[in-house]
């Protein structure tokens, strides 16, 4: 039983990380229909900046968080302002814009390597302590609790923002029908900027909370990006609660496959060694059966 609780808790924590990254994808998609493949690199930048401020400049934690989040949101804003906006002015297709974000991802990865360091897996101390918390025979560390709480709070705030503020609603309107939104007097460019700033913030926050636990390497961006993207797609791109739910689900699935995969297949082969493959197969199956994702709402929506 304690093993089951351990798998569940580990899965939920890993899932929270995926969820947080998926939220970043979702926000940009929700308001611009762009899939931002540089999202994983925002996570990396957030983490590496935090290590730099905390470990090398010895700033205290709040200042570290403030600075890292600000810088990453600024970079995200600049990505939109310099690259995306210019392409849009030249009537670029959506696909072109997505490819621009892939280019940005490669650029950011190179910058992270050149400006920071190449050593893999550096970290900074946990927010509060390295204390171990035991729940029903399973152990987690306090940073795990932080990750979980930060994800839920972020989800709550983002949902509030989109559902209950004029700006949030306007952003949704932009994605759903740009022309109509413009006719209603919504400044589409401004909304796009806000979406990028927000997702930059979320990326940075994700990077900052996971680095004390898992460390950060300059080239982890693709890894985190893919996990977050999968969660966002499973959760019906654009659905905030779906992104978080499916992030958690993905994390749990990975943990259970490692924990029970061998037993489930009668020890015929080492299932846990094919964890990624099995999770991807599951995901594809879900998407084949339900291409719109698990959290698709009605297509007609009033915003």
């Amino acid at each position, binding site marked *: 039983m304690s*093993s089951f609780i351990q*798998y569940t808790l*580990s899965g939920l924590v890993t899932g929270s990380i995926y969820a947080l990254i998926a939220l970043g994808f979702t926000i940009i998609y929700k308001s611009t229909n762009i899939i931002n493949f540089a999202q994983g690199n925002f996570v990396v930048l957030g983490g590496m900046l935090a290590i730099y401020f905390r470990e090398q400049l010895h700033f205290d934690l709040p200042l570290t968080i403030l600075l890292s989040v600000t810088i990453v949101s600024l970079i995200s804003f600049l990505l939109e302002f310099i690259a995306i906006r210019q392409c849009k002015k030249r009537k670029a297709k959506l696909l072109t814009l997505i490819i621009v974000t892939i280019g940005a991802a490669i650029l950011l990865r190179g910058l992270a390597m050149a400006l920071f360091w190449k050593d893999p897996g550096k970290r900074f101390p946990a927010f509060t302590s390295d204390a*171990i918390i035991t729940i029903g025979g399973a152990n987690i560390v306090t940073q795990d609790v932080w990750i979980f709480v930060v994800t839920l709070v972020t989800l709550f705030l983002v949902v509030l923002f989109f559902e209950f503020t004029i700006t949030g609603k306007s952003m949704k309107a932009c994605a759903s029908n740009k022309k109509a939104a413009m006719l209603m007097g919504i400044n589409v460019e401004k909304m796009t900027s806000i979406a990028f700033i927000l997702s930059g913030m979320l990326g940075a926050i994700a990077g900052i909370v996971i680095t004390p636990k898992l460390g950060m390497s300059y080239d982890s961006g693709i890894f985190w990006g893919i996990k977050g993207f999968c969660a966002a797609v499973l959760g019906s791109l654009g659905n905030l609660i779906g992104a978080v739910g499916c992030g958690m689900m993905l994390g749990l699935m990975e*943990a259970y496959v490692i924990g029970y995969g061998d037993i489930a297949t009668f020890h015929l082969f080492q299932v846990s060694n094919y964890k990624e493959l099995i999770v991807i197969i599951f995901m594809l199956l879900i998407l084949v059966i339900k291409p719109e994702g698990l959290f698709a709402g009605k297509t007609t929506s009033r915003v």
Partner: protein
Amino acid sequence: MKKSFMFFSIFLIVFSTVTCLFANEETIKIGALFSVTGRTAFLGTPEKESVEMLVEQINAKGGINGKLVELIIYDTEGDASKTVNFATKLIEEDNVIGIIGPTLSGTSLAIVDLANENEIPLVSAAASIKIIEPASERKWVFKTAQNDRIAVKKIYTHLKKNNIKKIALLTVANAFGKSGQKELEAAVEKFGFKVIANETFDPKITDLKPQLTKIKEQAPDAIICWGTNPGPAYVARNMKELGMKTLLVQSHGIASKKFIELAGDACEGNILPAGRLLIAEKLDDGNLQKSILLKYKKDFKEKYGKDPDTFGGHGYDALMIMVKAIEIAGTDKAKIRETIENMKYVGISGIFQFSPKEHNGLTEDAFAIITIKDGSWSLLK
């Protein structure tokens, strides 16, 4: 004004003639392939630093048999296809008489055939035994890093001595880990261990708690983790988080100070087989390697302001073997190869005794079992 102008011109003339002289003088060209950037930069960078330091020292003493050494280093970024391109360039354009490196097992395997076809001596700095076996087909290829096989033998011998029966294997899913896993599995029967879990994990940083929870259920006497940083550091940290007190055995792939930095106090009591560089000061005075190790440590610290690690030693040994062979054989490639094949050399990684059948030349004596105590390496007697 006029005077200073004249002075300047004279200086220019003298300078250019001197450079011309140097340029005309024949140098001994050796090629080097290291993964200086990229994910495995922590392996390639100390190798590059070590060989650059060594070349400076050799040239300051007048080079090899009066000729200066010119080392042409390319950064493979740990990428096999880039390695092949650079190796071709070294052979065809730079006309080197021998190549040292590459850093990784994967990149080394990518160019072993190239070295054989072009009949150029290659001294790799990577671990996998596949690089040099079978020696009859890998005539031109040698390597300095200790084989995985002897590392496994060293670990198993130690565990057997300590009455350990049930072991769990936890290996990284990359070339280094795969090769280690194969050797670990192959030797199990001979030592009579029972493998109760055999897990692999992604080299990308992930949470290893699920794997470890599964292993915990089976209660092994020891866990053997085979990988390069940062994965093994997370194994140590996660084990601490799960409150596991099982003996954790690491591979020689983590033998650098970075591992202790990454794992913190969670790696206290971990044991690993590693070259004697880590514990050079604590060796007996009679040890053949001691003076070489201490000199390397001192020189490296003076030049770069940090301690060298065993990976730098692999590069150091590769260049020294090449240099020693050229000292004896001159610049004829076939003769260099033959000389290496019969060489005995006391180096950083151990005492090498090459033979036509043995292109690594190290035995398990090259390893010491080292434990981590109070954030530092210490010799386990």
